[in-house]
């Protein structure tokens, strides 16, 4: 149990800059998630904490100690690898015993070792696999064993590198729930790396979003979801992706598309008439309403595509020369070709700076954005 503090962490592989000047403070006992697309430097950050990469600059502190130059085996951290990294020539129980036998994680008698292994395998439901070799396990089982090797011993920090990425969707959801319970149970500081926004939002006490090795935003899941610091974060979270529309401010409203529809400017955002802005609207925040229903803001468009995704229907609605993705409940009975009315809460309108081209990432606009200044 310890805090983790990174200051100015930098690492390059040849000409590629994996992590650039990253500073993060992780509190004791926190479940901290690092979220980012592949190549964002997540694993490099994690391995820097573990001491598995030689960092080019900056410091790593665990607890009160500066461990920047400390060998991995003296750092007392446990890590689950994305590849599981189970020893192929050892059985599951030997794999789990490995950290207990090294002598650097404390001294354990054979009985104590057995007890700890038994405890962790019971928690993870892999009791019956102890005599098997890693090659005889399914991916889900291997993942549990890898997790077990982390949990079997007391460590200052648990590092989990995309532990769920190679599982199928259903198993992933189940394991996510289990991880949440485990995280609540153990009071050990945990750093969790993932590219899956759902995992991040579900598990994290706080989330740091990385992009090309640099910190974009850090905050609670609520913060990150409600107030994304820029369009990159906004797009990274949510499936289907957030709708981003360019518009111009006019009379306290933002005219979008060819100017035939508009959205209100949220109260916290200070813009003047004539400003070019980019508006973000999450598909799940837009609601389909009946013709008779009253709404402060009403958008009307034509459904060009309706995809049934089980619980929801994903509608592609065309209005004013733009296309909006809308996640509808499916009870409205809208079909392709039909006219549809939609509304949304003013507070769900995200306003970002205007970009020169659609792929640009632009900063969130607004006065109350404490989240913008990371930490």
């Amino acid at each position, binding site marked *: 149990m310890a805090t983790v503090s990174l200051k100015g962490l930098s690492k390059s592989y040849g000409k590629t800059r994996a992590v650039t000047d990253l500073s993060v403070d992780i509190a004791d006992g926190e479940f901290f998630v690092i979220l980012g697309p592949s190549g964002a430097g997540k694993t490099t950050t994690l*391995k820097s904490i*573990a*001491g*598995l990469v030689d960092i080019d600059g900056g410091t790593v502190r665990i607890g009160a100690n500066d461990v920047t130059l400390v*060998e*991995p*085996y003296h*750092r007392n*951290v*446990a*890590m689950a*690898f*994305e*590849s*599981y*990294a*189970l*020893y*192929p*020539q050892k059985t599951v129980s030997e794999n789990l015993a*490995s*950290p207990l036998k*090294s*002598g*650097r*994680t404390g001294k354990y008698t054979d009985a104590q070792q057995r007890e700890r292994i038994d405890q962790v395998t019971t928690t993870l439901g892999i009791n019956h696999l102890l005599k098997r*070799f*890693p*090659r*005889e*396990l399914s*991916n889900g089982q*291997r993942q549990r064993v890898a997790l077990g*090797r982390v949990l079997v011993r007391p460590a200052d920090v648990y590092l989990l590198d995309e532990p769920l990425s*190679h599982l199928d969707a259903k198993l992933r959801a189940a394991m996510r729930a289990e991880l949440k319970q485990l995280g609540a149970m153990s009071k050990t500081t945990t750093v969790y790396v993932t590219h899956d926004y759902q995992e991040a939002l579900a598990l994290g006490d706080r989330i740091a979003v990385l992009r090309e090795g640099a910190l974009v935003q850090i905050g609670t899941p609520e913060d990150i979801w409600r107030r994304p610091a820029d369009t990159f974060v906004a797009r990274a979270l949510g499936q289907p992706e957030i709708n981003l529309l360019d518009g111009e401010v006019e009379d306290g409203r933002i005219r979008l598309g060819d100017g035939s529809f508009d959205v209100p400017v949220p109260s916290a955002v200070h813009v003047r008439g004539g400003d070019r802005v980019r508006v973000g609207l999450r598909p799940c925040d837009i609601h389909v309403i009946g013709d008779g229903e009253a709404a402060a803001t009403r958008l009307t468009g034509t459904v060009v595509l309706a995809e049934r995704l089980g619980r929801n229907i994903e509608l592609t609605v065309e209005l004013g020369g733009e296309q909006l993705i809308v996640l509808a409940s499916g009870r409205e009975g809208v079909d392709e070709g039909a006219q549809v009315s939609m509304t949304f809460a003013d507070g769900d309108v995200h306003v970002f700076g205007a970009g020169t081209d659609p792929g640009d990432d632009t900063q969130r606009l607004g006065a109350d954005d404490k989240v913008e200044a990371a930490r």
Partner: protein
Amino acid sequence: MAITRFKPTRSELLPGQRRLSPGSVTADLGLIIWFVFSLFPIAWMVILALKNAQEQTTTYFQFSPTWSNFATVVSDKGTQMTSVDFKAALLTSLLNCGGAVIVSLVIGIPAAYAAGRWKYKGSSDLMFQMLSFRFAPELMVIVPLFVIYNQIGLFDTKVGMIWVLQLVTMPLVVWILRSYFEDLPEDLEQAALLDGYTRTRAFVMVALPIVRPGIAAAALLAFIFAWNNYVFPLILADSNAGTVTVAITKFLGGGGQAYYNLTAAAAIIAALPPLILALTIQRYLVRGLSFGAVKA
């Protein structure tokens, strides 16, 4: 419900089954001819080894087989037919080659690990330099080596032979094992480091057992190369450290008569140790032990 047996019809062939076509028949015939052609020298050697002194130069296949040649070769103490003690030479060969292989493994495995794991400035040059020992024909270096060996007293010693034979085996071991270590996922050793093991222990505990098939393959190949070496023992050794490759040729002459039948018998005996070794360790040669450790 009764399960009806699957019967392939004429148009359906089982996996691996092929229809006979003129092309495939011709190809098979061609392969058979090639097989006979390439095996003929070995067959001829066996036949020759079973012939007696009168029949040894005949070119037809009619002869009265005898095992006496093998007995003669093995019992030859350097007094009867030739000046060589064949059994002693066989033992020397085992010692020399075994020694060279052990030296190559003890030094070569860590070297291969380092070369496979860490890339630094000049690391590939270093590897190439090591391989370049194998480029130069042995005859090119043999004269200076002979002079040096004479001066420092290594001529005709087993230590000297081991030293020179590891020049042959070391590059092999390092180059074969380097690729094994390169294929080995680094995650495994990193996991061991985080389990609290030092780099050395991580290497011994994790990396070494996984590359065991590679070590077996490299050791076998190195042994065969050392065993087959002829030039070094011919020039740098005599009766004390002389190997079996040189001893075989002693049956060819020197005493006025060439004993081709004895030479053939000696060659067959000399081929046995590598053959037996290969058969013994062949189960280690199967790769894929690391399957299951890391996702594909």
